[in-house]
């Protein structure tokens, strides 16, 4: 190999795959296809790109909980770790279908009816269905472009009272407006643990809000919050209402706290980085810096070393 060839790249394919995955996984919400296009152009190596994409896209899609339309447009499926049957199959309990997903293209290619063993028991389904209905109502009220889903992640075969089970509520709202150089997403995950012995439902929420503005610059918001609450087990319809109220309460509070963080920026938080005006409250006297130089000379002369 000549010296010239060596400078082209000293990385192994394995290292290149790792780097490519890193870029793909760090793409902001809704931007992985743009990042993929750029990194692919830089790599000029289809094998490396394809290997990295095949590994990174499923992880990205699940962590961003992307929502894909069924091929016949009869509904949509969310891609999350909670409804994953295998890497390319995701359950939509609302229509009792399983969606076949192409991760890299980010499309749903086909659907099939879910098997009985993939669906929860009718006892669980009553809770899941009632909660799904309430959450759908709530999401359509507060998120102009929100999607949501409710899955059973533990104890889906429980047939009657007497055992624990767990539901998870996913709420996702994304906006992509590349023509305005702006993208963003709101993601919440609410785990609901139904504890039979205590007759309580333990609620754990994880909220993540991101926004990216990139017209002649690159500025990103990354906000995360976790919270907890609980309620008592009631019949499915009542339970659905109180759980939805808990979510509504915490999400509204969180939105308020985001607003507060923003309104605190100019006078408190941002000021700790740089003030708008100097401590003297007047522009810096650049025309008069001789006086500073004189002060310096005096200080030097008073010190041990002479300025000459």
């Amino acid at each position, binding site marked *: 190999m000549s010296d010239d060839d060596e400078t082209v790249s000293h990385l192994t394919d394995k290292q290149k795959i790792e780097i490519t995955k890193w870029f793909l996984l760090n793409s902001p919400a809704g931007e992985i296809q743009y990042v993929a296009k750029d990194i692919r152009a830089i790599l000029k190596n289809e094998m490396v790109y394809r290997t990295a994409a095949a590994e990174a896209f499923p992880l990205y899609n699940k962590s961003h909980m992307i929502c894909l339309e069924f091929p016949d447009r009869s509904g949509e499926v969310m891609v999350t770790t909670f409804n994953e049957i295998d890497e390319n199959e995701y359950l939509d309990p609302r229509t009792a279908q399983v969606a076949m997903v192409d991760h890299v293209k980010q499309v749903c290619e086909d659907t099939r009816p879910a098997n009985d063993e993939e669906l929860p028991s009718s006892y669980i389904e009553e809770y899941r269905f009632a909660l799904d209905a309430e959450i759908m109502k709530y999401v359509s009220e507060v998120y102009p472009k929100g999607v949501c889903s409710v899955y059973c992640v533990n104890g889906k075969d429980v047939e009657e009272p007497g055992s624990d089970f767990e539901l998870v509520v996913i709420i996702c709202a994304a906006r992509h407006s590349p023509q305005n150089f702006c993208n963003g997403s709101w993601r919440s995950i609410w785990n609901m643990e139904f504890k039979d012995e205590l007759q309580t439902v333990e609620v754990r929420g994880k909220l993540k809000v991101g926004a*990216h503005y*990139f017209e002649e610059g690159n500025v990103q918001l990354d906000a995360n919050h976790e919270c907890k609450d609980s309620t008592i087990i009631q019949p499915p319809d009542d339970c659905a209402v109180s759980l939805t109220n808990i979510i509504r309460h915490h999400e509204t509070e969180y939105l308020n706290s985001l607003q507060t963080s923003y309104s605190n920026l100019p006078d408190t938080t941002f000021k700790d980085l740089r003030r708008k005006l100097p401590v003297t409250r007047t522009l810096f006297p650049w025309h008069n810096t001789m006086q500073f130089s004189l002060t310096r000379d005096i200080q030097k002369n008073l010190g041990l070393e002479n300025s000459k």
Partner: protein
Amino acid sequence: MEAAMGLMRRIPPKHSEAALSALLSLLPDHSSDLLSQVDQPLQVLCDVDSGKEFILCEYNRDADSYRSPWSNKYHPALEDGPYPSPELRKLEIEANDVFAIYRDQYYEGGISSVYMWEDENEGFVACFLIKKDGSKTAHGRRGYLQEGAWDAIHVIEVGPEEEGTARYCLTSTVMLSLTTKDESSGTFNLSGSIRRQMNMDLSVAEGHLCNMGKMIEEMEGKLRNSLDQVYFGKTKEMVCTLRPPSELVQTRLPDS
């Protein structure tokens, strides 16, 4: 290169260092382009002679050593590193002193360094750097920030003097990240970088330092303002588009 710059516009600014080193390893042939076009967070070293910290950048680097503006010595020591001419060094010393006062008045802390060197067309180039750690454990006077970093890089090309005026071309970059964290609202992080240019023909009657300083002050004010009003504002707008505050929902309902 275009694709590399495209990636730098998308990857979260807080990961820009990692992204740059990844790009450098993928594109070794473009390393000088990448290093000159992608700004990265500033590093500091301590000047062993003066005990003061100084900022490292491409402009005070030779081989693996960096020249301190305080002692004018390379760290680690270097046999034949380049130095500004005695006349320019005099201006550099003055600029460092004055800029430190400017920095203290606006930043209430932080570190600054100014470097100057002659360029090929009878003028010179000056680089003004500021690094501020505004977190509550460092120089954050008000103690609101869990983490807070502001890095400003101002490079001014000063053209040769003609009939009492000179042309000043300023390119400024600000990189920042701020995080607040508490029980009730979780972690809230905004990070970003923007770069702008400004050109001016100015009379040199009041001196180069006065002209450069005024331009930098104006530019920093503009950058801070557009980060605050435009860039942060746009991300806030996005949040309110995702989930409009309830007052908006309620006022909109009667219409629909």
